[in-house]
């Protein structure tokens, strides 16, 4: 008997840790992994709500989130490879051409 709110709080903690990685990490691939961590945290919320509402619809949405995450990872890593070829660096501080 685990309260549903524990799952939701765990999801909130993981989401904030992902956001912290996004803000503080300097390697662009680690930043990308932090985004994946945030997506996972949201998926956990979806599944917890799916249990709470006794509805499988949320699980279908988790499936779609995973599909989009896979597509995003493929394209994002291709972009990272291209950036590395052009700049020989993965530090986000060096990739500032569009910085105002």
């Amino acid at each position, binding site marked *: 008997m685990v*309260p549903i709110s524990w799952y939701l*709080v765990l999801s*909130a903690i993981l989401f904030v840790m992902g956001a912290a990685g996004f803000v503080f990490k300097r390697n662009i691939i680690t930043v990308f992994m932090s985004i994946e961590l945030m997506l996972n945290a949201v998926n956990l919320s979806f*599944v917890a709500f799916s249990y709470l509402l006794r509805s*499988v619809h949320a699980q279908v949405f988790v*499936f779609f989130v995973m599909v989009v995450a*896979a597509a995003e990872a493929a*394209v994002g890593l291709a972009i990272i490879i291209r950036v590395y070829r052009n700049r020989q660096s993965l530090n986000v501080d060096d990739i500032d051409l569009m910085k105002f």
Partner: protein
Amino acid sequence: MDKALFLLFATIAIVGAANLLRQRHPIYSALSLVAVMGALAALYLLLGAEFIAAVQVIVYAGAIMVLFIFTLMLLNVEEEAATGRSRMARYLGLPLLFLLLLQMVAMLRQEYPVTMVAQVGSHAADNVKQVGNLLFNQYVLPFEVTSVLILVAIMGAVVLARRKS
């Protein structure tokens, strides 16, 4: 019993996420993210989402993280340079993140009292069948659209990562 399992896997997830933040080398971060994803798959099983748990292991831990580690090895990534972060992130980042966490926890505690509990094994036994029924009846159009999205993503990845000839 459920509580012990939940606490075990929640601890693994949080420690893994903390290790992702702590490690300076991206390979170690990627491996701790795999641990987080495995722990989350176990939590999905506790919540009765068998299909999602399987897909989590196969697609996330299996496919996406392999792609990450493959890229890390391909680019031969070195340790993260310890550059000074931007002033905004240094002074505002942590307080705002704590504020976000406190807000979310306070809201969740208020909206979802501890009397709402999850009991392992109390869910419907035909989870995969239910998901499949929904996916191929009500959500068949979004399902087909995601296949086009995957196709476009594959072509985009090939075009972006191709060497200039």
